[in-house]
């Protein structure tokens, strides 16, 4: 008997049928294990809530009516498919109705006041999970299992008041969650907890921001000292690369926390490093699994990878929609603080630098940033630093590039990985524009023209035999 937190993402609870399937899975595993469930909002709901919330400040009440009507239909449809018992259907429908009535009031309030603050935005966003969790709860009860539904707040997740990106007061949270949920687990009652949302110490609704429901799941996992946290999603696990680029891409059976954090650049299909924070400290394994293929073991993320420890390279990713920014200036050479000035200007303009490379000659520094921010970055660097006597003599850009990131914990100390990567690229006749490797040696990133990106990913995937076990 294991203790497991299971988190189900937006597509896993996208429709009534999917929710029914989720209940199947939960009750199946709950027979031999103690299970706590964390659920996301139905796919697309959180985004539409943000959109309507932001529009509410200028739109009329009519728009709100249309929106809530759609939302009501989406959820009642899900209820009628996910749950068979009329009594439970009615119970959940009543909760849905009350919740939507509350949402209507909130949106109308925003409409009248004409503004949406980070605080009220969190409140609006919380409705996605508050609507989805009761349906999952109802579906589980429909399977004749005992269950109880909680908001993140009621479950005991207490955060600071940093709305939109709140962090838990971990010890206090663990204390409350243990007090409230552990007794249920002991009695084999399945708690269903809303992901993403929590509350500050005054009980005001907050959201945990980046990492989302995964973060809630790992917080819960740590608080309940579970054996594993399972992240149920719509992919088999973390892949060696994007299967759209390399059809033979393989699922990775095992990764370390560090490696998994590096994989965050795979985007939505991976886990945000923030969500891995709590579990990596407590050494609680995380498993990524596919709701559509529960027979697959998925990717296991643990402290130390055990199997296949010889593989130096584990995955390769391409990051698109980026641009390269090159700053030249002879006056930067040997001048302490000159790089700081460059980054200070970018920072003041809220431009995040994704990758940096600077030669020991110090005469130029190359950076990779989001493509959409390129114009702002160039303008501000020129304005601030390019005057006669300034440290910058020229700023050039390339906006048709992509970053290729090659990852693997065992690259550390393995000789010849870099030379193998670069000779593979050279054999394809493709020019590398920029290179960066941190001294952690978990990752080598380089920049090529975007049109060559897919070919480079394929070549490296093949060269390192990533498609073979």
């Amino acid at each position, binding site marked *: 008997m294991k203790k497991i937190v299971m988190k189900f993402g937006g597509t896993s609870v996208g429709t009534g049928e999917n929710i029914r399937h989720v209940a199947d899975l939960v009750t199946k595993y709950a027979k031999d294990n103690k299970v706590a469930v964390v659920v996301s909002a139905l796919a697309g709901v959180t985004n539409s809530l943000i959109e309507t919330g932001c529009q509410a400040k200028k739109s009329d009440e009519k728009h709100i009516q249309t929106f809530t009507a759609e939302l009501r239909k989406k959820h009642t449809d899900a209820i009628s498919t996910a749950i068979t018992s009329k009594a439970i259907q009615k119970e959940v429908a009543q909760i849905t109705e009350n919740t939507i009535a509350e949402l209507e009031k909130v949106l109308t309030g925003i409409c009248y006041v004409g503004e949406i603050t980070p605080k009220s935005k969190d409140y609006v966003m919380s409705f996605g999970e508050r609507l989805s969790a009761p349906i999952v709860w109802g579906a589980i009860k429909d399977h004749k299992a005992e269950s109880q539904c909680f908001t993140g707040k009621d479950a005991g997740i207490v955060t600071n008041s940093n709305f939109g990106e709140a962090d838990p007061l971990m010890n206090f949270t663990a204390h409350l969650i243990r007090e409230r949920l552990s007794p249920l687990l002991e009695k084999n009652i399945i708690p269903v907890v809303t992901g993403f949302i929590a509350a500050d110490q005054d009980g005001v609704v907050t959201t945990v921001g980046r990492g989302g429901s995964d973060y809630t799941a790992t917080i819960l996992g740590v608080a309940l000292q579970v054996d594993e946290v399972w992240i149920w999603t719509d992919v088999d696990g973390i892949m060696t690369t994007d299967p759209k680029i390399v059809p033979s891409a393989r699922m990775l059976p095992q990764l370390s926390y560090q490696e998994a954090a590096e994989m965050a650049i795979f985007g939505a299909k991976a886990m945000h490093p923030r969500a891995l924070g709590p579990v990596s400290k407590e050494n609680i394994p995380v498993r990524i699994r596919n709701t559509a293929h529960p027979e697959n073991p998925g990717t296991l993320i643990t402290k130390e990878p055990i199997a296949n420890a010889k593989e130096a390279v584990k995955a390769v990713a391409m990051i698109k929609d980026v641009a390269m920014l090159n700053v030249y200036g002879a006056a930067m050479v040997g001048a302490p603080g000159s790089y700081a000035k460059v980054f200070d200007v970018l920072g003041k303009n809220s431009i995040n630098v994704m990758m940096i490379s600077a030669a020991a000659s110090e005469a130029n520094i190359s950076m990779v940033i989001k493509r959409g921010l390129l114009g702002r970055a160039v*303008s501000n660097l020129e*304005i601030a630093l*390019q*005057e*006669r006597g300034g440290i910058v003599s020229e700023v050039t850009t390339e906006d048709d590039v992509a970053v290729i990131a090659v990852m693997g914990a065992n690259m550390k100390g393995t000789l010849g990985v870099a030379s193998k990567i670069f000779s593979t690229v050279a054999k394809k006749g493709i020019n590398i524009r920029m290179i960066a490797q941190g001294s952690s040696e978990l990752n080598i990133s380089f920049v090529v023209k975007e049109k060559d990106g897919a070919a480079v990913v394929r070549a490296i995937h093949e060269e390192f035999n990533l498609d073979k076990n």
Partner: protein
Amino acid sequence: MRIILVGYGVVGKGVTTILARRAMEKVSDYGFNPKIVAIADVDGAVINPRGLSPEKLEEIKKRGYPISADPDFGKKGISALEVIKTVEAEIVVEVTPVNIKNGEPAISHITEAFKTGKHVVTTNKGPLALAMPALTELAEYNNVYLRFSGTVGGGTPMLEFAKRCLAGDRILAIRGILNGTTNYILTEMSQNHVTFQDALANAQKLGYAEKEPSMDIDGFDTACKVVILANWIMNKKITLKDVDRTGIREVTLQQLQDAAKRNSTIKLIGSIEGDKAMVKPTEIPLTNPLCVSGVLNAITFSTEYAAEQTLIGRGAGGIETASAVLRDLLDIRRKLATKLLT
């Protein structure tokens, strides 16, 4: 630095010419790398977020109106307001025609630019004459700069001269010939003894005067400039209606001949002395440095310490006025650089 150019008349064209010329010198000497990312006029706009190349700008100028006919970047029917709102840029250069009834559409353009965090350089007197205290406050509130050297004296740096070169001194009075058209007419009348009507017709033929000449000859243009000088240099919160204004329609050949006998002549003088802002045909001695002929402008600042300083130059013209826009852009660039580095 990314620039949205609003208005593609003679000044707008001058701005594109000046920004393209000697580009490398601007970069190396001033760190100023201007990129025009959009030009908006009544028919629509040309938009390229990467900046329109000098070749493209030349092509647009050759094709003329409608500017939105550009095959690569033309966008027909988009309003200037929409362009200001949606295109990313640091600065809006507002050079639409003057309207002294309600200042539109320039006032809307300028306020929209402020709201979206863009600095504004304008050569348009209308918005300033009608709402200068309001606009300067709004700029300050939104933490952006509003610059308008081209509104007074064309390319002659009258505003900067007073504000910068005379810093620390106290300016007691300002008097000036601030309108080239009326000065041309009065010069013709006094030197060639032609009537007002003939001189006006001549000015219209030469393109110095508009078909509808009231703006110039009734002293509105001069009055606008008086308002800007009073606000910017003497810190008086006045608008157009506070200026006591008389034009040159009533000036006769007889009056000019009488003045000539006294070694004087009559000029349309805009002045600020004490609390009085005035535009009025005034007799001045021929020896007064203000007494310039033809379309020239001149301005005298009377100061507490440095006594009288007079500046003479051409007060209009596309390229001349565009040079004032360039100065304003460089000024804003320097101010931004200081801000970014502290």
